[in-house]
């Protein structure tokens, strides 16, 4: 797979100069016009004659895509009882990772599981109605989540009887606690461990 470096030279047709020009790869902020997304500091091909951006390389597309997804993401907010927040802390501790950075990954991971698997969604719905899900909602949960994922999780939630975001959040926290702390789902726990490890957590202890 090819990667251009800052300072490399190439060629492309410059719209301003209206001809084929030499270009140099430089970092620039690029604004996408339809979604008004600013993609900061990506490598672009700049015309060496007029200094305008002429093109950008294939390697910059993942950053463009990520910026568009951030722009389209929504904030999911819910309040949960303190003991559910305690469970999130216990799960983070089990993975030996910082709860503040891990919490959004944990919740997005489990919301994806809800969206993808109706049987799992039914389990989460059942847990959201359980005795353990109850209690005064004092702890605030807030995370950014891609619009498409949130819509898919909400749609699946409605299918299995969870109508509020708070039900989804309570249900997935209880499912995560069962999977990770009670060892109910080793395969899912291993995948979640991969996500935690990507955040800098050590490899999961097997004992």
């Amino acid at each position: 797979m090819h990667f251009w470096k800052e300072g490399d030279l190439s060629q492309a047709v410059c719209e301003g100069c209206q001809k084929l020009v030499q270009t140099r790869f430089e970092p620039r902020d690029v604004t996408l016009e339809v979604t008004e997304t600013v993609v900061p500091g990506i490598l672009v091909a700049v015309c060496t004659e007029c200094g305008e951006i002429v093109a950008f390389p294939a390697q910059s597309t993942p950053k463009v895509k990520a910026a568009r997804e951030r722009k389209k993401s929504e904030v999911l907010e819910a309040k949960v009882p303190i003991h559910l927040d305690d469970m999130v802390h216990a799960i983070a501790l089990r993975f030996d990772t910082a709860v503040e950075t891990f919490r959004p990954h944990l919740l997005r991971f489990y919301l994806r599981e809800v969206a993808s698997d109706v049987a799992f969604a039914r389990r989460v719905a059942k847990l959201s109605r359980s005795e353990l899900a109850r209690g005064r909602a004092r702890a605030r949960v807030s995370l950014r989540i891609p619009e498409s994922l949130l819509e898919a999780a909400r749609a699946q939630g409605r299918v299995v009887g969870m109508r509020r975001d708070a039900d989804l959040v309570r249900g997935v926290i209880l499912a995560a606690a069962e999977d990770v702390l009670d060892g109910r789902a080793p395969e899912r726990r291993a995948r979640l461990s991969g996500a935690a490890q990507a955040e800098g957590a050590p490899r999961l202890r097997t004992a």
Partner: protein
Amino acid sequence: MGFKRVRELLLASLAERRYQHERRAAAAEKNLLAVGEVSPEFVATLLLRCRGDDYSASPHHFDQRVLCHAFRPWFGAERWYVKAYLLGTDAVFISVHRSEG
């Protein structure tokens, strides 16, 4: 350079990620490969679905020395439009989107 050779070079540039995107269509989010809505593998699939009569070539409107290659393949019920030019073995994509007409 004929249809098959152009397609071969574009496929190689996609596989090796030796391609760029022209700024205007990419910034307007009309080049779906540039913004990551379709993958290079999908574009390769589109190119492989083309027959010779789905292909045409014309000079770039800003520089007649640069030959642009346009492909109009069908994928399912949709017709796509892929336009690019080659600089040696590297490619610059101008358009990758569903056909508008």
